[in-house]
C-alpha cells in the first residue's frame, strides 16, 4: 500500500464533469427561487438540494447512496405522494363545493390542458408514456404529476416535478393576463347570487367516503390518489380524531414533503437532465419545461371558455372568471379569481364560488391523472 493508493482511495470514487458542474448551478438556481422568490419553497428547496447531491455522487441511482434508500422507500412505492395527499385532504374544505354542486363541471373543464399537451408532445415525437407524463403537468397538482410520472416515465421525474411546482408558483403571473384577454369587463363584473344549500356535518363526513367509492369504481387507477386525499378529508371532518388529523397535517406531510423533494432532486443527474455522453444533449428537458408551461395556459383558457359557456347557458348568472379555478392549483387559483373580480368591482364577492370550482378542479385533476395512467399503462 503506497501513498498513491491511499490518495486513490480518498479521491477515487467520484467522477465530476462539466455537466455535473452545470447541474450544481441548476440546483443552486432552484434553491435561489425557493429562498429569494418563495416559489413553493417547501418543495423546490429540497429538490434543489437533492439535485446538488445527485451530481456529487449521491443520486437516486447510485448504489449505497442514502438517497437511493429514500427513493426506493418513498417514490418507488408511491408512498410519499400519497402521504402528502392525506395531509392535503386534511387541509381542504369541500363545503363550498357541496353547497353548489353544479360548480363540479368546472373542475372537469380545467383538465383540457393535460390532453392538449399530451397531443402536442405526441406530435413532437415523444413516445406515449413520456407524452402522458408531460401532459399530466397540466393537472397542476404536484402529487398527481409525481404519482403518474413515477409509474409511466420515472426518468422524467426531475423536470416534470420542477415544472409542476415552479409554474404553480407562477399562477399569479401566468393567469391574470389570460383572464383579462379572454373575458370582457362586463363579464368580470357579473355578480353571483350566494344562496348555498346548508351543508350538515353528516354530509361533510359522508362526502369523502362517497367520493372514494364512486371514483374507485369509475376510474380504478385514480383510486389510491383519491383514497389518500379523501382519507385526509375524512380525518378532518370526522371531528373525533383530532390527533390523527393533526398528525396528517403536520408530521406526516412535513416529513413526506422533505424526503419527496430530496428524492426527486436526487434523480436529476447530469446524464438524465442535461447531457448524456451516449446520446448527447437532453433536449427533452427543455421541451418538458416548455410544454409544461403550455399546459398551464391551455388549462386556463379551457377553463375560462367553459366559464363563458356556463355564463351563456345560465343567462349571465355565472362569472366566467371562476372558470379559471377549475385547473386545481388549490387554493391559489381560487383566491386569484376572487381577487380579479374584486379589482374590477370592490363589492363583487365570488370567493365562495371560486373556492368551490377550485376544489372541484382538485378532484378533476386526480381523476384525469388516474384515467390517463390506466390507459397508458394498458398500452405499454
Amino acid at each position: 500500500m503506497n501513498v498513491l493508493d491511499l490518495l486513490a482511495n480518498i479521491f477515487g470514487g467520484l467522477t465530476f464533469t462539466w455537466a455535473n458542474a452545470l447541474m450544481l448551478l441548476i440546483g443552486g438556481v432552484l434553491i435561489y427561487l425557493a429562498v429569494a422568490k418563495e416559489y413553493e419553497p417547501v418543495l423546490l428547496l429540497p429538490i434543489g438540494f437533492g439535485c446538488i447531491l445527485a451530481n456529487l455522487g449521491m443520486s437516486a441511482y447510485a448504489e449505497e447512496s442514502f438517497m437511493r434508500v429514500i427513493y426506493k422507500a418513498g417514490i418507488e412505492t408511491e408512498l410519499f405522494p400519497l402521504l402528502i395527499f392525506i395531509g392535503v385532504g386534511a387541509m381542504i374544505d369541500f363545503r363550498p363545493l357541496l353547497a353548489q354542486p353544479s360548480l363540479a363541471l368546472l373542475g372537469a373543464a380545467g383538465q383540457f390542458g393535460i390532453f392538449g399537451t399530451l397531443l402536442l408532445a405526441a406530435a413532437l415525437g415523444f413516445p406515449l408514456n413520456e407524452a402522458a407524463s408531460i401532459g399530466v403537468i397540466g393537472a397542476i397538482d404536484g402529487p398527481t404529476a409525481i404519482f403518474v410520472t413515477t409509474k409511466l416515465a420515472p426518468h422524467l421525474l426531475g423536470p416534470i416535478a420542477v415544472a409542476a411546482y415552479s409554474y404553480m408558483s407562477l399562477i399569479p403571473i401566468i393567469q391574470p393576463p389570460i383572464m383579462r384577454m379572454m373575458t370582457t369587463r362586463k363579464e368580470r363584473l357579473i355578480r353571483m347570487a350566494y344562496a348555498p344549500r346548508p351543508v350538515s356535518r353528516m354530509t361533510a363526513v359522508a362526502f369523502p367516503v362517497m367520493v372514494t367509492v364512486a371514483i374507485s369504481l369509475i376510474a380504478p387507477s385514480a383510486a389510491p390518489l383519491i383514497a389518500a386525499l379523501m382519507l385526509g378529508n375524512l380525518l378532518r371532518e370526522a371531528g373525533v380524531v383530532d390527533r390523527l388529523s393533526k398528525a396528517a397535517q403536520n408530521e406526516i406531510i412535513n416529513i413526506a414533503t422533505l424526503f419527496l423533494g430530496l428524492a426527486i432532486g436526487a434523480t436529476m443527474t447530469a446524464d438524465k437532465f442535461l447531457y448524456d455522453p451516449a446520446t448527447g444533449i437532453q433536449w427533452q428537458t427543455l421541451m418538458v419545461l416548455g410544454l409544461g408551461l403550455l399546459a398551464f395556459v391551455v388549462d386556463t383558457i379551457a377553463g375560462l371558455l367553459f366559464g363563458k359557456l356556463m355564463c351563456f347557458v345560465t343567462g349571465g348568472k355565472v362569472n366566467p372568471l371562476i372558470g379559471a379555478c377549475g385547473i386545481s392549483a388549490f387554493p391559489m387559483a381560487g383566491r386569484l379569481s376572487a381577487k380579479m373580480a374584486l379589482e374590477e368591482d370592490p363589492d363583487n364577492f365570488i370567493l365562495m364560488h371560486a373556492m368551490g370550482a377550485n376544489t372541484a378542479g382538485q378532484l378533476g385533476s386526480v381523476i384525469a391523472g388516474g384515467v390517463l395512467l390506466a390507459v397508458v399503462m394498458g398500452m405499454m
Partner: protein
Amino acid sequence: MNPTLVNSLWITLLSMSIVFAALLLLAGLMSAMTRVFRDREETLATLAPEPSPSVGGEQNGKMCAAAIAVAVALAEQEQSTAHPITPPQPSIVGAWQLGMRTRQMTQKGESSRRGK
C-alpha cells in the same frame, strides 16, 4: 399522422368524457346527499328563529350585503385554509385511549344512569 398521435386523440376523447361523467356523477351525489341529510335535520331547523329581515333602503341594503359578503369571505378563508393565521392550540390531547375513553365513559355512564 404518427400512430402515437392517433392513440392520443382517442385517449383524449375518452378520458375527457370520463372526467366529465365522473364530475357530473359527483355533482349528482352531492346534490342528493345535501338534500337527504338536510331533510333529516329539518325538524331541528324549523325550531330555529327566522333570520331578521334586512331593514333599510337600497343604499343601506347594499352596505349590508357587502358587510355580509366580507364576513362570509373572511369566515370562508379561515375555514378553507386550515387556519394559516390563528396558531392552532398546542395538541390538547396528552392521552390517546385515555381521552377518548374517558369521554365516552362519562357520557355513557351518565346516560345509562339517567336511563334507570
